């Protein structure tokens, strides 16, 4: 019999805070190629080991190994690499623009570029992505105009969102990219509803939704999983576990108790745990889940294990809450370097070509920023103020008409 003792409240603590040695021993790493790949029509009850595995394709030498290794052509991989490189260069450039006072806010996706780029290349333009603010690489992989991103970030006269939305909370319907918002998780259920609508209409479109590991604590996440499970919604539900939610480590959301992929178990939905810094693994896992969705087999939950290498946003200083050298110790490496090495190993890419790609992306970003600056940066240019009163309703009611008149616009 257990001895009676006073109760102790457990407060989770990350392995390392500033000044301490980074420690990622908690990340359950498994060798590339080790995780099995069941057929997509396997019963969920026979896949309950997968949330505790780790789908990895690229090994330390840059070879693609194991049952998940996708057969992707050279040009496909070049496009994926380009989307990731472009994202990183764009992020760095726009971060600088913020420091120069050209915009009010920005968020980088450094280290997480594969999470948007690879799924974007798996899904069609008619499918719908319900993004987080850290998957702009989804748009980059679809050649979304950089100028539109810049104009949105500058909230200038050419802002496609008419100056109404915070920088980077994009919306791009024609690119299958749903309207972003700063409220976390509240669009996770929209993806399920959208997918249910597609099934209801006997359409062939599917949905993909992202949520951060921190946001899995929101009720929206669990409500969405319930509906996805009950109605077999053709949706891919992706958790981007980048270890940090601003200053809160992943254990604050339950990551020290089980894997985030294991949230799937209580809902009877297949769950995958995937190396999120491995472009090929992200691609393969998304394709597997998409095939399930398109075959009326319902939803899949995927945890992408990754690392937020930069701060949360331009307002954040991560050295205040984690070791300053922690990013260098992340064991799953850098998604761009890993795909690049793989392509070089396969013999259709080189350091020279990579440098040329970076230069080309840099040139395109500079051109887009320059074009945006010519229209105007934040405060120097804005859409017509009458836009403030539009789109509240489809047709403005008397209040909006009168208030617009009162403001004189």
């Amino acid at each position, binding site marked *: 019999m257990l001895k009676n003792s006073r109760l102790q409240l457990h407060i989770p603590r990350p392995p390392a805070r500033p000044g301490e040695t980074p420690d990622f021993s908690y990340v359950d790493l498994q060798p590339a190629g080790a995780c099995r790949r069941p057929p997509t029509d396997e019963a969920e009850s026979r896949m309950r080991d997968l949330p505790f595995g780790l789908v990895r394709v690229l090994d330390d030498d840059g070879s693609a190994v194991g049952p998940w290794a996708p057969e992707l052509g050279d040009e496909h991989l070049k496009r994926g690499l380009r989307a990731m490189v472009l994202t990183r260069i764009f992020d760095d450039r726009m971060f600088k623009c913020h420091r120069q006072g050209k915009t009010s806010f920005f968020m980088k996706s450094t280290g997480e570029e594969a999470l948007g780029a690879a799924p974007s290349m798996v899904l069609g333009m008619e499918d719908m992505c319900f993004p987080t603010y850290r998957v702009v690489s989804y748009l980059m992989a679809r050649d979304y105009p950089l100028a539109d991103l810049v104009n949105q970030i500058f909230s200038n006269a050419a802002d496609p969102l008419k100056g109404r939305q915070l920088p980077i909370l994009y*919306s791009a319907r024609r690119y299958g990219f749903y309207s972003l918002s700063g409220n976390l998780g509240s669009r996770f259920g929209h993806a399920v509803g959208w997918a249910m609508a597609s099934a209801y209409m006997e359409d062939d479109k599917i949905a993909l939704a992202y949520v951060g590991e921190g946001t899995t604590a929101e009720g929206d996440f669990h*409500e969405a999983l*319930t509906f996805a499970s*009950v109605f077999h919604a053709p949706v891919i539900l992706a958790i981007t576990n980048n270890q940090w939610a601003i200053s809160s480590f992943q254990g604050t959301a339950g990551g020290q108790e089980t894997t985030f992929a294991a949230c799937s178990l209580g809902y009877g939905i297949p769950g995958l745990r995937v190396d999120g810094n491995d472009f090929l693994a992200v691609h393969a896992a998304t394709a597997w889940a998409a095939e399930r969705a398109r075959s009326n087999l319902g939803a899949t939950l995927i945890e992408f294990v990754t690392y937020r290498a930069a701060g949360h946003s331009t307002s954040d200083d991560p050295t205040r809450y984690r070791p300053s050298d922690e990013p260098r110790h992340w064991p799953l490496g850098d998604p761009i370097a890993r795909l690049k090495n793989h392509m070089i190993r396969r013999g259709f890419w080189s350091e020279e070509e990579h440098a040329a790609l970076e230069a080309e992306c840099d040139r395109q970003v500079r051109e887009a920023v320059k074009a945006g600056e010519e229209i105007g940066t934040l405060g120097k240019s804005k859409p017509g103020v009458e836009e403030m009163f539009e789109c509240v309703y489809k047709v403005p009611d008397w209040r909006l008409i009168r208030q617009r008149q009162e403001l004189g616009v």
Partner: protein
Amino acid sequence: MPAMNMIQAINSALDVMLERDPRVLIFGEDVGYFGGVFRATDGLMEKHGAKRCFDTPISEGGIIATAIGMGAYGLRPVAEIQFADYILPAYDQLVSEAARLRYRSGGEFWSPITVRSPYGGGIFGGQTHSASPEALFAHVSGLKTVIPSSPYDAKGLLISAIEDDDPVIFLEPKRIYNGPFDGRQGIPLKPWSTHAASAVPEGHYTVPLGKANVVRPGQGVTVLAYGTMVHVCLAAVDDVGADAEVIDLRSIVPLDIDTVVQSVRKTGRCVIVHEASRFSGFGAELSALVQEECFYHLQAPIERVTGWDTPYPHAFEWDYFPGPQRVSAAIRRCVEARP
């Protein structure tokens, strides 16, 4: 023309829209096989199939999130929240998502959802089955809030709400589902069949959103109300014998400001009645608007008759409910006031 009670009229509106538009589908807790706890969806699953009318998990946030996603896809979902008291878990979805989707996306996305929910007291439902949360929605830019007071209006307004391209909160005064309850207790409820507005066409028709109904014309005082309170006000006006103009707002957003202003400028007196609590209730907005628009026509202070600023109490229901006596007293004060 068949005589319908309000439940039958709502059921008929849903039936008509399911028939007319394959993009319309209906879901909520217990709405499918069982037909809803108030029977509003009775028979619809059987007639139109389970894909058009089905039960959901007990998850108001999930119901509305699902509806918004369906709406963004291009459907016209009609979600039921079983009691308006239980809509609050979905408040974030309504405020942060449904109301702002069109605005924040530069008009790229919108979600034409209709959220039906029985509201209001008078059924001994205590504080969990009696709430009148309309002001919580009226305050949110991007939402429309509609409240019918008769079977005819309920069907016509609900069809308008479903066909509207903006999100609409459709609050159903459950106390008058079965008859035009006028707040007088202890006497048998008159059935809707004795009321002219129970004549409801079987097919499609609309009552436009944002158009108030002058249910009783008059010259001496304007009485503004909606839902159950329309009938309470009519009873009170009869009791007082006042020459009152009773206006049923029908929808509080969009608000028919012209009808309100025209009437108060004519009568010079205004009594505002709602069942929801007073402080920051919708009556406060009405009172402010009337003051702004009609100040130099007013002959008396504006009167508000409302629920008290407490949660809806069970044993004290009829002490809380703004019945004909309180409304009569307010009308009398307003009519008799002299500058």
